[in-house]
């Protein structure tokens, strides 16, 4: 009888522990979670690189995935406000509601830029907590990784050592990569650029790019022909080297201004999967910097 009990106990131990079900809002957080959790997590990515993360629908598939999630990993800062609240509410999953342990916002771990001093829809689609596109500054991944690893350890204490070890490895690799990227990007310092959407303040802040104009008249509003010619005038006085857009954005406004102002139109992957080179987080920044360097040539 005792032997049977021991055998049963051993059998229980040999059953692989249930992996954490993770619902990542954007591909960059799915990739980071993959780095930190490895095989301990089953990760579902809610959006793809060619989708505007502001404009996603609360599709039935997303609700079904959130229903099974142990942890939701999102950018936060209102980036997903048009769809995530409905997805979480309809999921009926109390573990991942905002404020609970199963809800993680990357934006809460970093210093936010462009926090508006006034909230007025007349200013377009501004986010009260600041610009949410934090993933364009590679340095932001360090504090987010630390906070996310902390959360994984809370939710799955049995594998604490593994998360700790994976975090240490990631941090070390990332720091090495940061040094390399910053060295490569040295020629970008002070380079004047135009951006299509105000989606690059963190990138500019990191690499020292100077944003001289924005193709969207107000955040979230499509550029009109009249506004684009105004931008063209601005560029005559303050010439820029290139115009930046994210892979998910319509290329036409960028191409229009690039042709007329004789500057390079640079499409950046923006997140993992946004270009052939951006296969993982390291590839994302290798490719981003390579494209920027090509743009200034």
């Amino acid at each position, binding site marked *: 009888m005792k032997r049977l009990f021991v055998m049963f106990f051993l059998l229980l131990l040999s059953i692989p522990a249930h992996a954490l079900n993770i619902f990542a809002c954007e591909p960059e957080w799915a990739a980071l979670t993959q780095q930190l959790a490895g095989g301990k997590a089953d990760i579902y990515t809610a959006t*793809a690189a*060619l*989708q*505007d993360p*502001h*404009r*996603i*629908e*609360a*599709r*039935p*598939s997303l*609700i*079904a995935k959130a*229903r*099974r999630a142990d942890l939701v990993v*999102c950018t*936060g*800062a*209102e980036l997903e*406000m*048009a*769809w*995530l*609240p*409905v997805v979480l*509410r*309809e*999921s*009926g*999953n*109390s*573990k991942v*509601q*905002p*404020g609970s342990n199963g*809800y*993680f*916002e990357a*934006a*809460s*771990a*970093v*210093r*936010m830029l462009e*926090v508006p001093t*006034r909230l007025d*829809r007349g200013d*377009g*689609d501004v986010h*009260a*907590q*600041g610009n949410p596109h934090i993933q364009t500054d590679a340095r932001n991944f360090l*504090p987010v990784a*630390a*906070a996310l690893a*902390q959360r994984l350890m809370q939710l799955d204490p049995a594998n604490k050592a593994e998360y700790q070890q994976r975090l240490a490895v990631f941090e070390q690799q990332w720091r090495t990569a940061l040094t390399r990227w910053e060295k490569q990007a040295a020629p970008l310092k002070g380079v004047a650029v135009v951006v299509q959407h105000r989606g690059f303040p963190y990138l500019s802040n990191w690499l020292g790019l100077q944003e001289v104009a924005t193709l969207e008249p107000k955040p*979230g509003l*499509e550029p009109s022909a009249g506004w684009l010619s105004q931008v063209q005038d601005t560029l005559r006085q303050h010439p820029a080297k290139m115009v930046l857009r994210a892979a*998910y954005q319509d290329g036409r406004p960028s191409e229009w201004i690039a042709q007329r102002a004789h500057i390079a139109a640079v499409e950046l992957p923006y997140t993992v999967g946004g270009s052939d080179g951006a296969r993982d987080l390291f590839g994302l920044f290798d490719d981003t910097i390579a494209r920027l360097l090509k743009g200034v040539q």
Partner: protein
Amino acid sequence: MFKRFCSSTAIAVLLIHSIPTCAADSGNAENAFNPAFSLILSGSYGNLQRDPAIPATGFAMNPNPGHEQGFNLGESEMGISANIDPQFRGAATLALDPAGGVSVENAFVQTTSLGDGLNLKFGRYFSGLGYLNEQHAHAWDFTDQPLVYAVLWENQLAEDGVQLKWLAPTEMFFEIGGEVGKGRGFPGTERAKNGSGAGVVFVHLGDDIGIEQSWRAGASLHRTRRVDAVSDAVPDLPGTVGGVSNSFSGDSQTVGLDLVWKYAPNGNIKDRYLKVQTEYFRRKENGDLTYDTAVAGANITDTYSVTQSGWYVQGVYQFMPRWRSGLRYDRLDPGVAQVGAANAGNIIADYAYNPTRTTWMLDYSASEFSRFRLQLAHDNSRQGLADNQLFVQYIMSLGAHGAHQY
């Protein structure tokens, strides 16, 4: 009012990681304004060739929400919602009547922490039947509801009651739900006794097909007991001028099927998307009908049963950012009534006509919060009275604007 404070969660993060931050893990942007307050301003201009008070042929005993002619202020809607405490969320939508007065469109409480896929809602809510029924007017793709919603649900069924939904822990979206309520709104007759006046059950299935397509299919069943449901100006066989008033008491049972399919290149709905939806409802009513209930009327009661049905199919295409166009086709079947012998010479059993309507719309959204729409319809819902209709509409949303449902 707009000032933001570092929340205690942010302070906790600070202590752990010593990173200066003011971005709280608040997540629920709806609560950024606590409570979230929103206002929908809408209005329209309608140009009709026929009197909108004339009901669809064969549907004189159904509601006829109709249309407004000329300039008019549409439904302005005021919405307030917030988490009440960690267990409950509350939401209310007040419709501001252009003629003055306020009506309660929605006022419900829902649970946020039951877990296990359960969601409980109580108060006044839009019933979960069909696909369009839960959508607020400002989210409609056309100025008006499909004919089948107009005649079978008086545009939209808002019930006073309790709704329980359960989402299965499956890969595919699979949800079942049930409601019991007062029987408020057509076809219910506002039961004012103990117990429930109407019940609904529904089931939803949905999923993605690759990254570009998604769909949801549903089936629903609605039952109510109608008591002394009076209809005025109903045409009859003797041809009474102005029609007669009839009263019906009996069982009403409606089944519905709905399907929505959406496509967007790369799944990026901001640029272009296509949305196709169709719904079908079939209602069987079985009971007693009293013919001509006027004071000096005939007052003849006998059995009456009829099966009415209707469907629509519509497609909306956003062909470039900000611009959408849509086409809808509506069709109704008034059915052939079984009329008891006593009323066989009084009540029209077979209208032998299927009301139809074809509608086209074009809308432009300067931003996510404003929209202008032009709609043209060729309405053949009234036999021999074809109507060409034109509508111009604006819908503006200000304040906190919550996320929309699929």
